[in-house]
């Protein structure tokens, strides 16, 4: 029942997004602008070979983090602003609403990553020595960002200063996975999979599990008045 309802929420959000393209346009436009700016200002040649893994890893996750801040809050904010949240509250089990919205945000972030990451690697001549580790870090980092953003979006959707509050709450909550993701990306760029790289993956996995579980447990209280 919950999975079927979550699938309905997910499909509805995708269909609505496909017809308006508001969130995806905002995400991609922001990501592309920052990408061009970073490519122009820093570029592959202005960094020493030693600095490249560290600086490029940080820049990549900055682009992904701020892109997420731009568009992922819409999942719940839009429901409150258009007045559809009440009907959704009355009709759907809270867990299915959260799961459907989380899947929608994961899909959006997945599209952004699929566009941004290859472009970033090409623009910055950013070589990856351990692609398996890199993909694992991207996937787990993406889940962490999407889970935290979805939950925070539900909290801020009923407040007046939605955008500002979203950033204020998201920044401290997303710092731990971002640090782990930057470290993991840096290790993936410099050498083969190592214990330190796997530590970053473990940390991201633990964060994702904790974030998703806590969100499911707390969502009912956040979603209802």
């Amino acid at each position, binding site marked *: *029942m919950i999975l*079927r*309802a979550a699938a*309905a*929420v997910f499909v*509805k959000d995708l*269909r*609505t997004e496909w*017809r*308006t393209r508001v969130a995806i346009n905002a995400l991609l436009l922001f990501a592309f602008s920052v990408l061009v700016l970073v490519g122009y200002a820093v570029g592959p040649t202005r960094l020493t070979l030693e600095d490249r893994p560290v600086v490029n890893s940080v820049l990549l996750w900055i682009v992904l983090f701020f892109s997420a801040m731009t568009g992922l809050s819409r999942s719940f904010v839009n429901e409150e602003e*258009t*007045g*559809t949240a*009440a*009907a*959704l*509250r*009355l*009709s*759907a*089990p809270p867990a*299915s609403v959260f799961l459907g919205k989380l899947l929608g945000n994961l899909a959006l972030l997945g599209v952004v990553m699929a566009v941004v990451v290859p472009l970033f690697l090409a623009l910055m001549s950013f070589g990856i020595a351990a692609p398996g580790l890199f993909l694992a870090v991207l996937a787990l980092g993406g889940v962490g960002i999407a889970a935290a953003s979805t939950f925070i979006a539900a909290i801020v959707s009923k407040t007046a200063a939605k955008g500002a509050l979203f950033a204020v709450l998201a920044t401290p909550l997303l710092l731990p996975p971002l640090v782990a993701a930057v470290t993991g990306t840096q290790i993936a760029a410099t050498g083969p999979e190592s214990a330190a790289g796997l530590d970053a993956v473990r940390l991201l996995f633990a964060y994702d599990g904790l974030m998703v579980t806590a969100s499911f447990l707390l969502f009912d209280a956040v979603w*209802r*008045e």
Partner: protein
Amino acid sequence: MRLVAENVSRSFGPRRVFGPLSFATEPGRVLGVAGANGSGKTTLVKVLAGLLRPSAGSVRLEDAGRPGSRIGVREAAGAIGWCAPDLSLYGELTPAENLEFFARVAGRLPTREELEERIASVGLDPRRLRSIRTRFLSTGQRQRLKLAYSVLSSPAVLLLDEPGSNLDEAGHRAVTAIVAEQRGRGSVVLATNDPAELALADERVTL
């Protein structure tokens, strides 16, 4: 199912909007809620729907055949239908897609014929509206669609808040038909200022 409100009141800050009130709905009967603008009709309906917590008292559903059974309205998904000025459906979906979505999240898999039948039951032409997004409907057409949504899950209790607003003569007949249909399976709470609609009520609560 009976909807039982016991000493229910609601305040916003220091201002009490209504209450304390006690009443119960009975299957097959219509409870009218009357009152001037600002008397708290919409707030009362939201409390009955579980969309707002009461400041004091309780609202619950009781199974008429099982004395003593109690279900909080917030745990009674699908048992309560709601139509109100505050209700909005998804503007980017067509009327049928809207009804299909709300049926699916409530755990039902309606056929296309069932959805079109429900749309037709409130006087809308399902074929003409098949490819029209809800945001392009007129206010009256959207109100009729909200009526269709409110009875989608065959609720035990139907809460109607100003159901005739923005409706023409045929729309008012659709409201009467919905109320008559609901009498056959449960109860209705009808909050309105319209004397013609209040005439449908068997009992009345005045705020």
